[in-house]
């Protein structure tokens, strides 16, 4: 049922939210999350970033995360889009849309998917700074803690 996409192109949130409801009358709530490129990281000005991924594994990993969310909460449909390639500040990076009968399930499933994606999906960011240098972004310990709270 769910839609998973890894793509270079931008996405349109309202179009994805309409698509996920697609004339259904049994959906009580949709929750969407959009991640954006910030122009600041660790006190440095970010000019842009390159998102690399592991093409053979990314789809599988995302599918697995969405399936797990669907087992834990009532998820009627889900859309997960992650962009790769060259991105600039204010660009959209990631979209999660969840449709459910109840808002609680939709909020929890959306939050779970983002926490797991941050620690389990094979994407890596390389930032270009305003001074012309570039660096790979380090994983944050706080992301590990955020994912860990779902295992309690």
């Amino acid at each position, binding site marked *: 049922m769910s839609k998973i996409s890894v793509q270079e192109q931008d996405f349109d949130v309202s179009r994805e939210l309409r698509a996920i409801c697609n004339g259904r009358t049994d959906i009580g709530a949709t929750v969407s999350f959009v*991640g954006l490129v910030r122009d600041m990281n660790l006190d440095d000005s970010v000019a842009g970033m390159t998102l690399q991924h592991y093409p053979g594994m990314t789809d599988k*990993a995302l599918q697995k995360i969405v399936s797990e969310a669907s087992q834990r909460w009532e998820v009627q449909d889900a859309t997960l889009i*992650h962009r790769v390639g060259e991105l600039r500040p204010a660009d959209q990076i990631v979209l999660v849309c969840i449709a459910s009968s109840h808002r609680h399930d939709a909020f929890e499933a959306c939050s779970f998917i983002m926490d797991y994606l*941050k620690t389990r999906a*094979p994407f*890596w960011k390389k930032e270009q700074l305003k001074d012309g240098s570039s660096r*790979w972004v*380090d*994983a944050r310990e706080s992301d590990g803690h955020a994912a860990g709270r779902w295992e309690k």
Partner: protein
Amino acid sequence: MATVLYFARLGEQLKTSSEELSLDEMGTVGKLVDHLQDRGEPWSSEFESGRILVAINQEMSDFDSAISDSDEIAFFPPVTGG
């Protein structure tokens, strides 16, 4: 021959993103890592950090996992998507 892949910062430091390797007696990821570290720098220090993750045939695995010549084994730093 197993396919061995290196992603992101790791691939950049090792100056290679993929290679074909005959695993011979290397039955686990850990043994393969020992073999790669025997190549000297930068291999030894890149794998020394203890922060390298491994996937076998596109599934997250660990250094105790068994591997064979038909496998695709990928090494990479902790992920930073989203």
